[in-house]
């Protein structure tokens, strides 16, 4: 659980393509995710962020390309190899994905009970250490239904880090949270990186969060990575696509009205 200052690459993605039938969802994605840092994958809804995340986690087989992570090419790995790699990663899903029939503590202990033979006392103390990290020690015995949105996110984070993963994935950490709770969660993500040396990949479109937590940003649009860089580099980008995202500009004004009408009506 001690930190590291490595600057090598934790995940290398090359020429990744995903097609759903005739539709191309990811188009020749190339991305290096550095170890021990926070990479934010940003973009509007439908940009391909979630599909990329699903591919990295081995939940979606890409059409072609490679994803090297923890010594395995996830794109071509067997289910057994993916299962082995997954033990070294933590995932906090957008909705929390906590089991509602269990208490918070039971949810957090679950991966340890499933994947280790640790003593009961060790499991309990580990769970409480992680609950304390996310400032939820007093919520150990609460049922999931009793949690606020922010608490559910923090509980999901505690479960994601229970096995001390090398890699942590966080899908839309701030979505649906009030600004104060979102800011607390952002700070927690930064603390985990610094104290535990984790490589953290955050998928989000929340601009406030992005510029607080990111060491690196990959901007996606229409299934492509249109730019990568530090927050400063992305802010200073002259790419109109990036500026449009950062300034939340509305979609382009229609110039060719005839063409637009044809698209809407099918040209009858």
């Amino acid at each position, binding site marked *: *659980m*001690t*930190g*590291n200052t490595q600057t090598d690459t934790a995940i290398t993605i090359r020429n990744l393509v995903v097609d759903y039938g005739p539709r191309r969802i990811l188009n020749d994605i190339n991305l290096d995710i550095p170890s021990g840092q926070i990479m934010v994958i940003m973009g509007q809804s439908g940009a391909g962020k979630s599909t990329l995340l699903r591919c990295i986690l081995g939940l979606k087989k890409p059409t072609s390309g490679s994803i090297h992570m923890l010594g395995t090419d996830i794109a071509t790995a067997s289910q057994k190899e993916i299962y082995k790699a997954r033990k070294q990663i933590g995932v906090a899903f957008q909705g929390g994905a906590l089991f509602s029939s269990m208490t918070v503590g039971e949810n957090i202990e679950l991966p340890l009970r499933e994947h*280790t*033979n*640790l*003593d009961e*006392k*060790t499991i309990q*103390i*580990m769970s409480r*250490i*992680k609950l*304390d*990290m996310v400032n939820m020690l007093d919520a150990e015995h609460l049922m999931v239904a009793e949690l606020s949105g922010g608490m559910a996110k923090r509980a999901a984070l505690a479960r994601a880090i*229970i*096995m*001390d993963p090398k890699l942590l994935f966080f899908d839309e950490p701030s979505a649906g949270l009030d600004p104060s709770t979102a800011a607390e969660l952002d700070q927690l993500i930064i*603390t985990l990186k*610094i*104290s*535990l*040396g984790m490589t953290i990949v955050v998928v989000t479109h929340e601009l406030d969060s992005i510029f607080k937590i990111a060491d690196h940003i990959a901007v996606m649009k229409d299934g492509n990575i249109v730019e990568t860089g530090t927050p400063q580099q992305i802010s200073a980008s002259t790419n109109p696509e990036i500026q449009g995202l950062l300034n939340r500009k509305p979609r382009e004004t229609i110039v060719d009205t005839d063409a637009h009408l044809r698209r809407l009506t099918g040209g009858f």
Partner: protein
Amino acid sequence: MECNVKSEFGYDLLELSGEVDLQFSPQLREKILGSLKTGNPLLIDLAKVSYIDSSGIASLVEGFQTAKTSKLQYGLLNISNTAMQVLTLTRLDKIFDLYSSIDQFKQKLQ
């Protein structure tokens, strides 16, 4: 992970080295609890520990609670900066007795 307990004059010294992770923390737990059963104070030297995960930290915490219940001195020696960050994050730096030398621990025993 290497884990050796040496009986010194009036206390046990547990020297740890290498990586303390999910695979080896049960062995650490066994050594700590086994040593405390002898009724001796215990000092754990972490100088040669290159990595300790939360299962290792949990074993140290359980040992501390056991020592406290048995009214035995229990200390951690030579905590690395990175391990210290983890203890600080979990506020365990305020709970454990941390020492930078064996002499410091011996003075506490007197």
